[in-house]
């Protein structure tokens, strides 16, 4: 296992969620769930992040922000869509200003269902993402010339 999986730093972005999922993401950092046990730090800065946790259904105005932020995360990186809104737009699917699911804007690696997604669910999602992260790292190495 690489170090990458032992130290996943997350960046959380609220792409127009109702706050339910956001506060659960935050709750995951706090004593009862304490994701720092897995080396997870909430960096707040895309340039330091490995895992992009996105909540919310993405509205018109959020699109470019989401995309910009995603682009500023150095590779390898994974995106986790947290909550039903981020997965499909959820209850707001039919709103005129909603894209419905962040996969409409950036590629998503893991979907965490729930409305709101529970902290345990989020932890599960991150664990699942670590495997994908590791694969991406390997994939990134190969073009660099090593035999691998």
């Amino acid at each position, binding site marked *: 296992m690489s170090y990458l999986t032992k130290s996943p730093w997350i960046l959380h972005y609220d792409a*127009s969620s109702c706050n*339910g999922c956001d506060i659960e993401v935050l709750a995951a950092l706090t004593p009862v769930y304490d994701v720092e046990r897995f080396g997870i730090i909430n960096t707040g800065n895309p340039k330091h992040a490995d895992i992009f946790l996105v909540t919310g*259904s993405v509205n018109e105005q959020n699109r470019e922000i989401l995309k910009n932020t995603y682009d500023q995360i150095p590779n390898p990186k994974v995106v986790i869509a947290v909550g039903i809104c981020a997965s499909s737009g959820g*209850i707001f699917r039919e709103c005129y200003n909603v894209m419905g699911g962040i996969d409409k804007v950036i590629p998503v690696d893991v979907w965490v269902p729930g409305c709101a997604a529970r902290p345990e669910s989020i932890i599960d999602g991150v664990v699942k993402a670590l495997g994908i992260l590791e694969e991406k790292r390997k994939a990134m190495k190969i073009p660099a010339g090593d035999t691998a």
Partner: protein
Amino acid sequence: MTKQIIVPFGPQHPVLPEPIHLDLVLEDEKVVDVIPSIGYIHRGFEKLVEKREFTEYVFIAERTCGICSFIHGATYCQGIEQIMGIQVPERANYLRTIWSEYSRLHSHLLWLGLYADSFGFENLFMNAWRIRERILDVMEQTTGGRVIQGSCKIGGVRKDISNAKLAEMNRDLDSIKREMEELTTVFLKDDTVIHRTRNVGVISRQDAFHLGAVGPTARGSGVAIDLRKTGYGAYGELDFPVITDSCGDCYSRCLVRCKELFTSVDIIQQAIAKIPDGPVDVKVTGAPNGEFFMRAEQPRGELVHYLKGNGTKFLIRSRIRTPTLTNIPPLVKMLQGCDLADVPVIVLSIDPCISCTER
């Protein structure tokens, strides 16, 4: 020549759990100009009333926001009940009140945490949220949801709480109260906290009133508005003070919220003592025809649900005016001339909730 720095503050910024953007113009670290821009959460779900029956719209109203989800749901239901003239059973009114106050506890604790984080007091944040988990546990045990409770419906509530459980909650509140006392002491007595909050983001009583401040933002400046005093739910039968403070700075707003924690505990305990037995819902038939401005006190202040129906299953308008929306103009005033380091503190001090602001 003025030496200015322009900082695009947000929409992606660690201090803001929700996206909002400020163009900050600084000289050294003094904020000389600030222009907000919002709209990052606007989903436009008010328009969903045209597609969802008014009974299902409760679930959407609840998801106006994940923090005072319950109060949004309850306010919506009460609005519809007012239009349709439905008399809700007393027990349901009490339960609604209890859950509302639990929401307020959880919201204020959440806010205290974020607020502590805004001035870099990580430990305080962690402690506030640790206590908050105990509130959420009760929420989940009684409604099935931690943050989106989904326990309100038109005509009553969807779940009853057994009297044994109520007694247990009552006992639990005593110990939560002790923990909160320790927590709020730090907010109110610690020198470094006072350094960051006293005389920061001051807004006078006059300004607060005329710019439309509500909730703790208004009460921190001495404007005593608390919609619970209109007596919706079971509030009319309970005894509680409207907490105000006069300084109008971040410290005052924090003080008001700290004291409200204990008011809420008191209200819940009173309600548990008084709650009558009986059914928790009535059957609803027909459709709303008419309009009503239902107002309720959210943790952040006055909430207005304006509902208008025309006798069909689909309302013609739901307009949700949330406390943060009306607290934005005071916020813009508060930010003038503060320090860059004060920006997060001041922004947090109105307890901004963008999700419901923009709907």
